[in-house]
């Protein structure tokens, strides 16, 4: 060819180009369609609808009277009442942590059912989703028949509590409700969070105190009430082929980094766990790979019988067994005590209140689901 080659459109080259373009389109559409198939397969692998949620809320207003998605464990009526609560929260510009607190409170007080005044069978005059009492100034009997009014009264009171966004859910709820069972609200946090997730496209996973819905970052608390224990890279995963006995993840952080409770809960155990050659080994100094055990560590019991464990702390944790802690509360500082080759936090998540290795699950997957991703942006 000549010097004009670069601009020529000879028949042979046109054919080649067309073939390449056609193949390119084919490749693109195939990968897209296979990507879709892969995604739907992955979504279908689990029965729990909440695990399909990957966003952090759409920001669209919830329509309680439109078509509502199913929520496992709740009737359509209960889902509608949850939707009414969330819609009122959105209208009042309450950030999503408030929606979760309100739905959990209504789950405890009425099972999300708009209970009428039960007459002589009732011990007092409580009405509705939040069991509010006309005699205690919550409103007239007529006003309190309306779930939207009930929710508005709940949120109005919640917003008067200083720092409510960072309080354990049950503490915030109790400050509003003043019930004889102050710790009863905590157990509803997981179902309330997944209900909010399903109705809002993942707002339970969003930064809890932010009006503009977005995923958490840098140690923020999610609307579900969870946060990362430390901010740092995961350097060793859960039960990898090289470390099948690794029942948690290692997060690399400099010695002395504050370690935070991943959610509200009660401290179960504070111990030094270190042995070498069959003898106890101090946790107040660095361990090594020849030392066995978790070093200075603590276990925290959360709602729904989830336990989190924090190992290799530099010194005795700052909390004691039996103590309640809030989400993001500092419980100790990271170090390298016990079986550790360098400063890091070893972090475990256990289900069914089983602190043994049989209860351990992958913290990366768990924390992602509750809106406090350990790896990258949620």
């Amino acid at each position, binding site marked *: 060819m000549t010097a004009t080659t670069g601009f020529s459109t000879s028949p042979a080259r046109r054919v080649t180009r067309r073939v390449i373009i056609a193949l390119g389109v084919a490749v693109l559409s195939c990968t897209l369609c296979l990507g879709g198939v892969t995604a739907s397969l992955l979504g279908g692998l689990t029965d729990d609808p909440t695990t399909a949620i990957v966003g952090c809320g759409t920001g669209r207003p919830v329509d309680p009277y439109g078509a509502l998605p199913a929520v496992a464990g709740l009737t359509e009526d209960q889902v509608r009442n949850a939707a009414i609560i969330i819609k009122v929260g959105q209208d009042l510009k309450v950030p999503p942590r408030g929606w979760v607190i309100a739905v959990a409170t209504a789950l405890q007080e009425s099972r999300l059912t708009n209970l009428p005044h039960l007459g002589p069978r009732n*011990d007092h005059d409580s009405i509705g989703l939040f069991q509010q009492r006309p005699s205690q100034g919550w409103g007239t009997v007529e006003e309190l028949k309306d779930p939207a009014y009930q929710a508005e009264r709940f949120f109005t009171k919640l917003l008067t509590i200083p720092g409510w966004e960072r309080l354990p859910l049950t503490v915030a709820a109790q400050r509003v409700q003043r019930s004889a069972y102050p710790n009863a609200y905590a157990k509803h946090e997981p179902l309330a969070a997944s209900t909010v997730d399903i109705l809002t496209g993942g707002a339970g996973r969003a930064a809890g105190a932010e009006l503009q819905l977005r995923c958490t970052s840098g140690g923020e608390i999610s609307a579900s009430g969870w946060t990362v224990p430390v901010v740092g890279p995961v350097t060793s995963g859960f039960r990898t082929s090289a470390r099948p006995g690794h029942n948690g993840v290692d997060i690399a952080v400099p010695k002395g980094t504050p370690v935070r409770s991943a959610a509200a809960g009660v401290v179960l155990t504070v111990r030094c766990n270190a042995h070498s050659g069959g003898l106890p080994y101090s946790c107040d100094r660095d361990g090594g790979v020849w030392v066995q055990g978790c070093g200075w560590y603590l276990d925290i019991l959360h709602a729904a019988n989830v336990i989190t464990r924090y190992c290799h702390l530099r010194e005795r944790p700052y909390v004691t067994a*039996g103590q309640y802690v809030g989400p993001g509360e500092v419980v100790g500082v990271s170090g390298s005590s016990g079986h550790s080759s360098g400063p890091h936090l070893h972090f475990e998540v256990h289900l069914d209140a089983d602190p043994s290795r049989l209860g351990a699950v992958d913290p990366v997957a768990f924390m992602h689901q509750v809106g406090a991703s350990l790896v990258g942006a949620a």
Partner: protein
Amino acid sequence: MAGLLRRIGVRGGTAIALLVLILGVVAIARFTGGGSSMVNLPEDPHATVTVDPSEGDDGEVAPNPTAFPDDAAVEAAAAAFVNAWLQRDLDPADWHAAVAAHATDELTTALIDVDPLGVPATRTTADPTIVLRTEEFAQVAIPVDSGRVLLALRVVDGRWLVDGVDWERA
């Protein structure tokens, strides 16, 4: 570039396109599998045969015991609290004093302003049982006529006190 394309030809182009297709599918599968972190495909079991099953365990060894010599004291403390708590016909000030005698300061504070008429039960229907126990913490369940009361107890100055009250409707 044009010379290169010509040399590759239609067949070569097809081969390259197929290669891109395969790499694309692999990349997509990897991305969706690893990126979502919702699904962890099991590792090839044969890949681990040379590794000790406990290898890499920097977690807890020699776990806590589950039964303790003072279990009876825990159950007695729980029963004393719940009997006071159930007296909802008491004058509010008397009820608060009765309950506070078996509660931590934190629980007493959480119960400020509570109307005893709101206690959602009138009597126990079975003895307390320990649900969860460590050396200094216990969870105790007590069946009541309306459901179940779940108490959290902890040791304060050598004494078991109730620190949390949960109630589940039957």
